[in-house]
């Protein structure tokens, strides 16, 4: 008998990701599981803010319909199950919407599970003690608290799969765990088997950023070239029961799966590579082994694990004021000297209008707006420069001053000033994100089931 191989593919790496590669994986990936990651650090808080202001906002991925319409036909035809964190602050609502879409497409009797339990806004101040970033009591966040959510692990998803769910939709779950849950279920891995779970969440980490392992965020002409970087596929892992895996992608697509792309993704957003903390296990990447088996096929094995920690990470979103920003332009000989005088004018104007800012940046885009203080002193003078100004303030009224003073540069500014027509007030709200820890037994997840 051939050894069992489970094929897990990626459907998205973030909320704004492309939809076409997900459809391609659903139709041509021969997948057992298609998994979606759609949340960033501030996604839950931003969704809470929007839900308060807009009662019609359902609280799940705004691209839920687009993504599901693209993949449901292929997934149903190929017997591919779906695991997705598109539930955001309303997993049950997302599950209900998926049921509607399934019926619309003529698929009856499909079981959809919703994993709830991540949101703990109402009790976070009782359940947590200290803010990890600054050691202060989490109670100090009470006046500005928007929302708090626990990073759940793979276990509630496994529970849903065991109960026969074809589609599992969650709120906040640690990104790698979304991709590992199918492996735990298929191979019957024990939640405390840290050796296997280490490999599983290590593979999950390779898949969670989608195209970042198949040639995205990678090409550098002359140094790291890949074919057709406009036509990237999302990755697929072929995982064997013994824990070895092959990272690959659908044939005929652009990009590449190489030792270089896999290595870069392995350390992406990792701190200590021997101790990558996840809710399920502590992953050790320092024992990883890689081998290029053929074109776009990299074998991965040897990633190891250590026992999970007794706590889960909590992410706490808070209102933290506003950012006002705008930019205007110079070009031609002397562009930089005019930009420098414009900077001086703005600094004086902000003094005159009494701008109260917690942080203020006036940069020259084209010279130092991206790398800031890391810009080499001998960087060449650019032909074109944008003066880009941004301030973080406590109130919206203060943030508005940034755009208003840039407006003044139109007729009261420097020679040869290029400017856009003002659009709105050029401010946005800041949601600060803090972290804390909660004992895992205090935050049980619940699973509910719907059927199309």
């Amino acid at each position, binding site marked *: 008998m051939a050894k069992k191989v489970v094929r897990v593919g990626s459907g998205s790496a973030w909320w704004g990701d492309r939809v076409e590669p997900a459809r391609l994986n659903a139709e041509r990936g021969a997948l057992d599981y298609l998994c979606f990651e759609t949340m960033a*650090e*501030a996604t839950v808080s931003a969704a809470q803010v929007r839900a308060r202001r807009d009662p019609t906002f359902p609280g799940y991925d705004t691209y839920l319909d687009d993504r599901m319409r693209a993949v449901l036909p292929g997934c149903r035809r190929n017997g591919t199950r779906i695991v997705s964190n598109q539930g955001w602050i309303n997993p049950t609502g997302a599950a209900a919407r998926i049921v509607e879409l399934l019926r619309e497409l003529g698929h009856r009797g499909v079981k959809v599970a919703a994993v709830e339990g991540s949101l703990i806004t109402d009790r976070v101040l009782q359940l947590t003690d200290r803010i990890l970033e600054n050691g202060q009591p989490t109670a100090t966040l009470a006046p500005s608290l928007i929302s708090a959510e626990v990073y759940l692990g793979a276990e509630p998803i496994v529970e849903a799969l065991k109960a026969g769910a074809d589609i599992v939709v969650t709120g906040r779950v640690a990104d790698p765990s979304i991709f590992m849950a199918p492996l735990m279920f298929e191979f019957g891995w024990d939640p405390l088997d840290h050796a296997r779970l280490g490999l599983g969440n290590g593979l999950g980490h390779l898949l969670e950023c989608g195209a970042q392992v198949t040639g995205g965020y*990678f090409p550098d002409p002359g140094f790291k070239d890949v074919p057709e970087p406009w036509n990237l596929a999302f990755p697929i892992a072929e995982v064997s029961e013994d824990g070895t895996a092959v990272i690959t992608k659908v044939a005929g697509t652009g990009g590449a799966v190489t030792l270089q792309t896999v290595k*870069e993704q392995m*350390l992406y*957003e990792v701190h*200590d590579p021997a101790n990558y903390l996840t809710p399920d296990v502590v992953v050790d990447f320092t024992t990883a082994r890689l081998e290029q088996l053929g074109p776009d096929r990299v074998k991965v094995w040897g990633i190891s694990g250590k026992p999970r920690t007794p706590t889960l990470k909590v992410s706490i979103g808070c209102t933290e004021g506003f950012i006002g920003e705008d930019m205007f332009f110079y070009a031609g000989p002397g562009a930089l000297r005019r930009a420098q005088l414009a900077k001086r004018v703005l600094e004086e104007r902000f003094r005159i209008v009494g701008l109260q800012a917690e942080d203020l940046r006036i940069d020259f885009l084209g010279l130092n707006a991206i*790398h800031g203080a890391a810009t080499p002193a001998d960087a060449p003078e650019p032909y074109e420069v944008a003066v880009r100004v941004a301030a973080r303030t406590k109130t919206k009224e203060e943030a508005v001053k940034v755009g208003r003073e840039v407006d003044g540069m139109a007729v009261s500014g420097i020679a040869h000033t290029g400017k856009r027509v003002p659009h709105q007030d050029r401010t946005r709200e800041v949601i600060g994100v803090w972290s804390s820890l909660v004992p895992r037994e205090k935050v049980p997840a619940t699973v509910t089931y719907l059927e199309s």
Partner: protein
Amino acid sequence: MKVKLQHVAHARSGDKGDTSNIAVFAYAPELYPLLVEQLTAERFKAFYGGAIRGEVLRYPVEALHAINFVCHGALGGGVSRSLCLDNYGKSLSAAVLGFELEVPDALAPKLVNLPARA
């Protein structure tokens, strides 16, 4: 010979809160010891000028011929608070490609895209 890091290694940065991790990967196993010897945490931090306000921790990973630099205070207070246009710092990893290394001439064939010498 003096060579910019871009010919010796490739790099990728990632974000978590106010911390950027910048991982540097040798193009060939033979080049990895050069990174370990010459790209110290102190030199790395100094090369980024004032852009990294906190501590830089350095994690060599022999199995990947890579070094991970964990840079605290590099993202303007955190992705959502940052006033930088590139608030995730995804372009930060490019800066270190300009770091100069001393490379033995014998390793020249291992370097990537080295311009022909005049």
